[in-house]
């Protein structure tokens, strides 16, 4: 059944998304072309351009980390949210919410400190930290999103002969999707930022030039890494905004 895009974001948002995406891609593949600019701005820094890895490699590694951690956060988070909103799992709601909240209040540096001795350096401890960090918004919004479906609508679905699976698949999930996606959006944006600190334990991310710059007192490195992370976060956020719009059905249910 057609889940149509009924309301569109203003076209200016779309133009913004397209131009920022273009800028991001241009910077990722062509940052080196700006070397003269950085040399002019920071004449005392040598080198003024981070060159140990290509920015393309760093960006792809950063994205892979965020993608994998977000996939795990989203599957575990949505599953947990679904579980505690079913009759069988309702009593676990407080427990799951608390666990997810603890996951987020833990400073990511502390998570790394705990995980590194167990899992070693690099990708894995960063992934664990990101997953824990990204879980809460997904769980919260899954529970909240399912909660916005009016009970009368569920009753109508049941009264018309849908079974529990059909109600979940055809009614609850589509109607909760906008709020769930809003949670995923928060989770992913947090992870794009947080992934940078994975570089302190040896994960290759866009944080690598930032950390190198901070350690080696090289401001251009910091700027080069930070601009890419920032742009990546903004572009991702705008893309999610568009995705969310696809799931608003012009009904009167509370927006959150």
């Amino acid at each position, binding site marked *: *059944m*057609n*889940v*149509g895009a*009924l309301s569109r974001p203003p076209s200016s948002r779309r133009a913004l998304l397209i131009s920022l995406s273009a800028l991001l891609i241009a910077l990722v593949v062509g940052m080196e072309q700006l070397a003269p600019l950085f040399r002019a701005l920071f004449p005392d820094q040598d080198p003024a351009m981070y060159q140990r890895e290509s920015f393309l490699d760093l960006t792809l590694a950063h994205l892979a980390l965020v993608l994998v951690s977000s996939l795990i956060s989203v599957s575990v988070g949505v599953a947990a949210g679904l579980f505690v909103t079913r009759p069988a799992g309702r009593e676990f709601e407080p427990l799951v919410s608390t666990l997810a909240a603890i996951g987020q209040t833990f400073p990511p540096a502390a998570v790394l400190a705990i995980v590194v001795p167990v899992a070693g350096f690099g990708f894995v401890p960063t992934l664990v930290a990101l997953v824990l960090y990204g879980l809460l918004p997904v769980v919260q919004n899954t529970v909240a999103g399912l909660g916005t479906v*009016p009970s*009368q*609508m569920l*009753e*109508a*679905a*049941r*009264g*018309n*002969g*849908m*079974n529990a699976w*059909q109600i979940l698949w*055809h*009614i609850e999930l*589509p*109607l909760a999707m906008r709020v769930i996606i809003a949670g995923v959006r928060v989770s992913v944006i947090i992870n794009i930022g947080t992934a940078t600190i994975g570089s302190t334990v040896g994960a290759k991310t866009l944080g690598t030039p930032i950390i190198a710059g901070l350690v080696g007192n090289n401001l251009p490195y910091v700027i080069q890494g930070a601009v890419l992370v920032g742009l990546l976060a903004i572009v991702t956020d705008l893309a999610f905004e568009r995705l969310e719009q696809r799931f608003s*059905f*012009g*009904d*009167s*249910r509370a927006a959150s």
Partner: protein
Amino acid sequence: MIELQGLTKRYGETRVVDDISLTVEQGEFCVLIGPSGCGKSTTLKMINRLIAHSEGKILLGGEDITTLPPERLRRRIGYAIQSIGLFPHWRVADNIATVPRLLKWPASRIAERVDELLALFQLDDEGLHDKYPHQLSGGQAQRVGVARALAADPDVLLMDEPFGAVDPLTRDTLQAELARVHRQTGKTIVFVTHDMDEALRLASRVALLNAGQLVQYDRPAELLVAPANDFVRDFIGRADLGLKLLSRRRVEAYCRPAQRTRNNAIASAPITWQVDADDRPMALLGGRLGESDIARTVVNTEWTATPEMSMKEALSRMVWFRVTALPVLDGEGRLLGEVTMSGVMGHRS
């Protein structure tokens, strides 16, 4: 046919539905009515097992409803509630097709059925097929809700205050439409409301509940002329009993032959209608209160009656226009007979 036998619902110690037994015959329009919280919705929802009953039995066409899996049962019973029950992310056509899709009808049969229902509810010429619920007016949404309940052609239709959230004018239209659909389809309907006028207008039988118990189960006219006790009288509204009764009766039953004349000379009868060559009334001679008997009042379209009009409306017109008689007209405006103020007291039938 639906039979409730000693039907009871307990929540803890409270019996919110208490030992209700009644039979809804095939094709009957049964209205469950009573004060808020008396157990109407609970009773209705036990019929399609949205709520499990605690004691007693429910038979549908002689078959105990607990012998079927609940989903199968519900696909055989139409269910309509207020318009919020429409799925906001599905188009009108998809909403109507809900049950046929669950029953895995072939797509062509579903499309045909959707068109049929849109036509039945006069929604077909409004291009609503592809609209979403939020693009509908309250009345349209309500019609779609009822169409959805009828989609798989169930024998039984359950409706829980379906017109509770629409304005009075729209409700009036929807009631008339539901009555027509009931006549055309011959479905057995169980309909919950707390509005006595709605009940009297639609019901072929009214079940009046109070505190979970069945107080009276009767034809509407019986309820009005022979209320079982003071609760029934109070619930109907003592002051209005007579008018409610008249609202159930049609002019037809009170219509009697009219005295006619072709000129404006006063004839022998106290009320005489001056008619033209086509037997259309032009004026009433006499029959005007507080004026001399020879008064001549030109007939105006507002103070005429038709056989289908309710006697309540006819009486209201007589009072408003200060005449003691109304001409009863056929579709062409010809004089069929008259209803009079004194005739309101005794009807034939």
